[in-house]
């Protein structure tokens, strides 16, 4: 199922679509303030992009572009990022998740705006990593010696 797809049409079209999937996923995460979407939907789009790469590319090439540990790494990094943003205001004496108390010399509303962006990126990383890990574990379950 994963590895080089036998049909050249599928490989070529997939390779053409791939960069646009990643650009769109990033856009959805970054544009959550203004349109539908956000970290959750964008993370799924990015993960589906890597799944597409896994399905059409040579196994070695796919693993070099997107290492097998990528999902776990993204999952852990995103979770730590979210927890850091959550706890940081407590350190400066405010309440949990009060982005207005984040360090930085901007207006309170601007800090909350940036806090939302960080949270969207963190949620995106967790969803991306979680979904990719599920796919990788399921698709490689039979391969391991």
């Amino acid at each position: 199922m994963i590895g080089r797809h036998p049909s050249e049409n599928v490989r070529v079209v997939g390779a053409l679509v791939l960069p646009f999937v990643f650009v769109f996923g990033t856009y959805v995460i970054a544009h959550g303030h203004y349109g539908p979407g956000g970290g959750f939907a964008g993370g799924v789009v990015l993960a589906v992009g890597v799944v597409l790469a896994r399905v059409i590319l040579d196994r070695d090439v796919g693993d070099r572009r997107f290492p097998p540990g990528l999902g776990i790494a993204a999952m852990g990094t995103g979770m730590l990022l979210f927890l850091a943003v959550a706890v940081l205001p407590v350190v400066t004496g405010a309440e949990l998740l009060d982005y207005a108390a984040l360090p930085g010399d901007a207006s309170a509303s601007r800090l909350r705006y940036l806090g939302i962006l960080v949270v969207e990126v963190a949620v995106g990383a967790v969803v991306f990593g979680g979904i990719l890990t599920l796919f990788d574990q399921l698709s490689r379950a039979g391969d391991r010696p």
Partner: protein
Amino acid sequence: MSWELEAVLLVLLVLTAIGAVLVRSMVATVAVLAAFSLFVALLFTAMGAPDVAFVEAVLGSAFVGVLVLVALRSTGDRPAGRDRRAAVLGLPLVLVIGGALFYGTTDLPARGDTEAPAHAGASRAYVERALDDTETPNVVTAVLADYRSLDTLGETLVIFTAAVAALVILFRRSTS
């Protein structure tokens, strides 16, 4: 949005749901369920919930199908045999639970009703203040990631924990 469009979508939903039960191949079931998810996403869009529709479209109709297809690789495409007892027991159960749910919907406020209890409390304040408080025009994002970000933190922890649990189970199965 016009009620005709929603009626067409609801009919398509029922048809795809019946189709998913009737088709004999598991791969075909996955495809029909993906179509079902897509129609649900369209219905959410028609009802004015593009954020929910987006997640339903990418997750329900794109990724879940892929995941099930990968899982089918290790179980095979054979559908389970039909069990007549399941139909005898299942049909009344579906009718009773479905009827109770339909009965429950008659007591819900109309969609878009500004006097509904859900719109009386905090949600009005969110709509009025989100732009000034957070410079975020999309109120849904402001609520999810700012006002109610504790909920989002909890949900993210749930996703994280579920993924780790699945990882542990699958990893153990594949090495034993």
